[in-house]
Each structure stands twice: as structure tokens, then as C-alpha cells.
């Protein structure tokens, strides 16, 4: 195991992860970011379908 992954690293990151897991604001921020991306995904899916419909038979 690499020496830079010492006790201090694990102690600190455990604190960070716990804080993150219980931080409602942070998790709401994540949901907002995903919602913003979602618009693009829906657009992309529509665009994909439109393109697929232009394809003829594939042999």
C-alpha cells in the first residue's frame, strides 16, 4: 500500500465523506447540476431518435 495513504489521509477523508453524506445543501447542489445536465441528455436522446429514424434497413 502506498505510503502516502497514511492514517492522517484516511482520518481526514472519512471526515470529509461523512460531512458530504449529511450535507443537504451539497446534495441539493449535486441534484441541481444533474438537472441542468438532464436538459442536454433529453435533447440528445431526441436528436438520437430523429437520426435513427432516418436510417433505412441495415444489411
Amino acid at each position: 500500500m502506498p505510503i502516502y495513504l497514511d492514517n492522517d489521509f484516511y482520518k481526514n477523508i472519512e471526515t470529509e465523506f461523512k460531512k458530504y453524506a449529511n450535507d443537504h445543501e451539497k446534495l441539493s447542489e449535486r441534484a441541481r447540476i444533474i438537472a441542468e445536465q438532464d436538459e442536454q441528455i433529453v435533447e440528445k436522446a431526441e436528436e438520437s431518435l430523429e437520426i435513427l429514424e432516418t436510417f433505412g434497413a441495415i444489411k
Partner: protein
Amino acid sequence: MQKKKELFKKFNRTNLARDISHAVSIKENILRKEIKEYIWPRLDFLHGSNKEKVYYIFEESYTETEWKDMISVHYINTSYNVKNTVMRVHLFGLPELKSDYYIGFFTLRKIDETQIMLSYIFPNWNNIRNEGQKLCVMSYKKSVHIMGKELWFHTYPLFVQDNITVACSQADIISLTLYLHHKYDYRRIRILDLNKSFSFRKKKLFPTAGLSPTQMIEIFNSYDIPIGYFATAEHSGKELSLTEIYYNYIDYIIESGLPIILGMSIKNFEERQQSHVVQIIGHTQQNRDEYIIYDDSGYFLKNSLNISGFVATVTWEQLKEHLDKKSFILYPIHEKVYMMYDDFKKAFDHLFRNSLELVNLEGKGLLDRNKTRYLLADNRIVKRYLKDKVLPIDKPNESLNEEIYRLLELDMPHYVWLCEVKIEGGFFVFIADPTLWKLTKKNIFYNTIPIFSNEHFGLLNYI
């Protein structure tokens, strides 16, 4: 013992033509020519450079569902003289009935007009080499029975079109769904029912004109196989370029042990443009972006890459040259996955940016996010990996051991998201719940700390 040795013959065109000739009453010299032209090139990948050292066992009659279906839907109405069984040829690296030497089998359709004879290839991917290197191909465990002996092997089935009842689009559906059926328990699609499973722009069925991508999606849907798709016109100025999106999607789908149908518009040597589909079923052991492609007619490999085989390794650099506005991918998605790839990537990115420790490691060059793998995996395989590969590592840190035991005891959904980040000296592994809605305000990650492992997590192995 002596009798067992007589089972095996040297795998060459003369011997094979003789055996087939006995079975179908076609002259050996005609068969030799046909085998050379239509069958041999398809089987090149099975024996690699050890062509001289391959042996075979010939079974004159074997019942194959797909061939029976093809007869039922079409050949029964024609003047072709067909038999309802196929011939089966088992290949071995040494003349012994052992799984260790088993290369796989292929079947030949019994019909009085050749050129369309090869039916199925079931390679033992564990024993296939490309330039001496092992291949990482998705597979399921299958058994064959030869002379009362049962041999087990890891296969991904390759079905071959006849261009009359089945074109490349149907062949890929048949082969892909047979794998999904055995690997993940999805419904098996039968040729017998294939043409009843779609209605959109349906035309005369035989000789087949192939299927459009939307018809293919309709078929998957009618069998309750959730299917994802992606096609796009090049659009600059957006977050990712067309090829980057393809690259990322192909990587996550293949790493998740799910096959991809890749559609392309290909110009042949006569400058005619034709749509064609191939399957991406794995990658080489050395490179995640050197894909194993099955092209059931060889049309793409021949016309675009000047490769004469039907199974080939194709690098991302080669492949991306052929992705354009007339390309698309279709891929299965596990039913109970509700947080999709793009959303999970964003969620991980958010967690990462909120951890000073991780950001610091990246800043010091000890962590490389460019090599991050995202994949869906069965939680039982993930737990086996934690128990067998991660837990035994000598860890000076007690909390890491406790975390692994906690994860092993945790009730997880069938499939979980796994994210593997490359760090100096190993990997960080993160596991997340894909059953929550993408806009959830719950924490989706199971980890309370990153799991260190010095071994890759992989689904494309032969365990």
C-alpha cells in the same frame, strides 16, 4: 485409449471437406473451394498462428434452434434440399478431450447450396490468443458433451447471417441476446418470433432487407430488454465532441460486460454506401481501447480497414475515423438501474470536488482522473472482489479493513455503480447505488472512505 485418439483429425480443408461431403453429398473439390472462400477466413481468429496444431472432432448431426427456426420461417417453403440438423465441429489445441485444450465449436448448415453454410461459432475465449496475447471478451459458461464427457468453456456466441432469412442486424440481435439470456437471464429472442416482434415500417420479410435501428429497438422492447441508443450529428461548442462521447460510452458499456451494436455507413470498393452493424464484445488485455469486433459478414472490416477476417482487434484510433453522422450505438441497460451513466459521472465528479484530500492527491500528480473507469457490476462480483482481492492486502490502516467488512455486510441492489480511479501504486474504488432517482438528495455512495486496491476490478475475465 486408442479409440479416443481416432476421434481427432488434423484441422485442414481437405479433412473437413471430406467429412462434410459425406454428410451433404456435395463433391469434395467444390466444398474445398467453398470452405476456402467462405468458412476458413471466418475461423482464422480461432487458431491464430497455430493453424498446423489444431485438431477437430466432427459431429454429423446436431440440433440447433436457430437453424430449425430458419427452416420453419423460410427454407421449408423453398426448393432447397435442407436437413433440420447442422454439422458441428469441435476444435482442440491438442488431441485430448480436455477443457484446457478446447478452442470452441462451430456449426455448419446442411443445405444443398453452399456459400451460406457457417451457422454459429462458439469460441472458448479463454483459449483464444491474438498475437500471443489473451483477449478480454465478455462471456458466459457453456458446456458441450462429447462422447459422454462434459467440457465447460467461456463463450460469447457469434451468429452468421445467411442474407435470406437473417441479415447482419438480425444476426447481431440473435447473438447478443443469446449472451444476455445466459449471462443475465434476459429473454431469449428466437428467429421464429423475430418478425412478429416489430411493426414499424414492416416490409416483405424474405429475402430479408435487414432491419432499421428503430425496428431493432422495437424488437428489444418487445422482449423486455431495455435498450439504450446514441446517435448524434457533430456539434462543436458543446462540452464533449462526438468522438469523445462515443469513446466514453463504449468504454463504460464494454467494461460493464454489456455488448454494443455499432452501426455505420460504409463505402465499399465500388464506392457504394451501405449501412452495416457490427458488435463490440471486449478488448485486448493490454489496451482498453483496442476493441474486439465481430463483423458477421466482414463488410466493415474489409471495406473500411482492409482486414480480411470477421473477428478483429480494432483500435479506437482506427474506429473513430469511421464514426460520423450516420453512426449509432445500441446497447442493453439493466432494468433496475435508474441513475444512468452521465448522471453517475456527474455525481462522482461532485463528490470528488468536495474532497480536499482527493483534490490534493490530483494536484500532486498521485491521482489520474483521466484513467477513471465507470461501470455497472453485479454486487456479488464486487463483494467477491473485495473479499478475495482487496481484503488480503497488507494494510497498515485499520479503518480500511473495517470499511471492507462493512461493505461486505451491506445489503446492496443487484447491480451497483463502480468507479475505479487510478492512483500512484494502485486504484481507489468507489461503489454507488444506481436505484435512486438521478435528482435524489440522498448520498448515493456506499463508501465512507475510498477503498484502496492494487488490482483492477474487471468483468471481462474467465472465472
